């Protein structure tokens, strides 16, 4: 079992957002969480990555056999957890590749491995940039500064490709992308699917799942997973809408 979330309750500023969420992800699986706005999708992603400001009031999260909630954000990253941000952050003056190198070496160090040398690193970065159909000029630009929405998302998946996580949580990676950019991003994710890498896709729309085929689909509403199924569930949602499903769950 890679990730095991049990009866997770969490609140922000005294307001409860997650109300008993449970989710289990095995190695190599791709899960999609869908849900209406405000259902708690992004909150789940933020809590798993260790964002400050959320209070976990009950429940547990185990990741690779350890209590994930005990780890600092960087500890989680070093343990192979990657969050593709819904709104990737701009860091003026910090070179894209420089951040990546520091990130990669922080992981190497945490794993007791030697730092990667500059030549091997550049080879790796160029290979992965080509995978994401990214122009070389992206590498030397400041992190996300002046990037279009699509470029930012592509940059997230590029970082994922370089950092090779064990669990990638992709928070609304499809939002703000036109169809061509969506295909590139989805293709980038598909190329990274492996038996020892799991992906948690968080999305509002079924569209992304046309390109990245999940093993499981979960519907999150009002802080809980109300329905789980295979990829056909996403199509059903698309046809019937969230309201119908929520009514069914309530009834």
């Amino acid at each position, binding site marked *: 079992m890679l990730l095991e979330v049990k009866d997770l309750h969490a609140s922000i500023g005294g307001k409860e957002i997650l109300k008993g969420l449970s989710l289990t992800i095995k190695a190599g699986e791709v899960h999609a969480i869908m849900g209406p706005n405000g259902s708690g999708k992004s909150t789940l992603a933020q809590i798993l990555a*260790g964002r400050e400001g959320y209070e976990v009031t009950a429940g547990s999260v185990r990741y690779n056999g350890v209590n994930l909630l005990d780890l600092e954000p*960087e500890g989680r990253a070093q343990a192979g957890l990657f969050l593709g941000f819904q709104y990737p952050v701009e860091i003026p*003056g910090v070179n894209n590749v420089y951040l990546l190198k520091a990130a990669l070496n*922080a992981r190497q160090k945490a794993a007791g491995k030697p730092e990667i040398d500059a030549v091997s690193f550049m080879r790796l970065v160029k290979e992965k940039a080509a995978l994401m159909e990214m122009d070389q000029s992206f590498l030397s630009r400041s992190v996300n500064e002046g990037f279009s929405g699509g470029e930012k998302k592509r940059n997230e998946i590029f970082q994922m490709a370089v950092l090779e996580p064990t669990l990638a949580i992709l928070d609304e990676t499809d939002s703000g992308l036109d169809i061509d950019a969506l295909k590139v991003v989805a293709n980038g994710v598909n190329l990274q699917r492996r038996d020892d890498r799991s992906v948690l896709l968080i999305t509002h729309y079924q569209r992304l799942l046309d390109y990245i085929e999940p093993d499981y689909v979960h519907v999150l509403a009002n802080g809980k997973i109300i329905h789980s199924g295979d990829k056909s569930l996403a199509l059903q949602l698309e046809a019937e809408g969230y309201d119908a499903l929520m009514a069914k769950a309530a009834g």
Partner: protein
Amino acid sequence: MSTNETDIEALVAKKYEHGFITDIESETFEPGLDENIIRRLSKLKGEPQFMLDWRLKSFAIWKKMRQPNWAKLNIEPIDYQAISYYSAPKSPDDAPKSLDEVDPKLLETYEKLGIPLHERAKLAGVAVDAVFDSVSVATTFKGKLHDAGVIFCSFSDAVKEHPELIEQYLGTVVPPRDNYFAALNSAVFSDGSFVYIPKGVRCPMELSTYFRINAANTGQFERTLIIAAEGSHVSYLEGCTAPQRDENQLHAAVVELITEQDATIKYSTVQNWYPGDEEGKGGIYNFVTKRGDCRGARSKISWTQVEAGSAVTWKYPSCVLRGEDSVGEFYSVAVTNNYQQADTGTKMIHIGANTRSTIISKGISAGKAQNAYRGLVKIFPTAKNARNYTQCDSLLMGDQCGAHTFPYMEVKEPSAIVEHEATTSKIAEDQLFYCRQRGLSEEDAVNMIVNGFCKDVFRELPMEFAVEAQALMNVSLEGAVG
């Protein structure tokens, strides 16, 4: 310039064999300041009459002035009569004999800053004798400079060896009556550096390494004069990233730069005087007047400063753009932590036609510190087509510090273009989280964000100092977050 050029060249060729280090008798004056003290100081230094007269005139001016209070600084009253205006260099007998005797914390800081091993002993004040590495280095440098005809010596030596140059140029950029601290400095300056780059000469090395090794003890009232003759070029670096302690709380330095036609001076400063402790006790008061005069057409003066130390910083390195097509630049990073206060910026005075200036200022505040940018861009009616671009960015860490921007513009010529951009941002929670999510520790994330913020300035520094300056940011802001 042209009339005494040959004289200068002769002097350069003849007199430079004298060393950089000045030997003065060991003596320390009792506290207090009056004409008699100034006479004694001048006599002790073996100065010619004109120098003494100049000091006395400056003293008379200073007595009629008042300490300025327009800066956004909170300063304890200074008792100018409680200061000793001459203290002999410390006896080598009191100095530590080897690095083993130096405070391990200081050594740790040198390590973090990446100070070369052979410089650490010197910086830590270890008494070293002639076998020390740096002496041979210095000798090699001296030979090279001599061959190029460059005069580079202590100010005291210059007064003795090149009095006509001093008399011609001293106080022509910053006259004694310019401001209170400049007047005080003119009356009592202890020592400093003098540089003369002859016509057409490109100084064969950065005047930094040499300086660092030779002038660790710069003193309280420093005076620097750099003259770049027609078509010459020099890059000069003062200060050091290593923390410097000094028993004298008050520092009032004056730096004057002069560029003739087609000449360039690049002046870089890294200031890391003792900032006081975490409670704001102690720390240097640093009142500095720095000004460059672009006298000739197409000349250029570029100031780059990294201000990290001192309890109080009051300095505005400026450019008077007199020559047509002359260029002034000011690149500044000022970082304040704990109770430090900085009021710093620049003045760009456009007089000649087609003069251009660039101002890039980055202020970083943490702890309970206050950081102000104060800048003046003045365009005279004669400065047709003058251009200025100003960018001031402030970064706040925590919620108890302050950043302030005071830009002044006086534009008297309609063809001028003056642009000003300013931003203030907090080191954002989401930037930190983003970096940490990628695996960086919180401290590394802060360092990366701060250094990114300062990048436009750091790239103007000489290479080896850019690396040290980055490390200096990290050390200065240690513990500022989290």
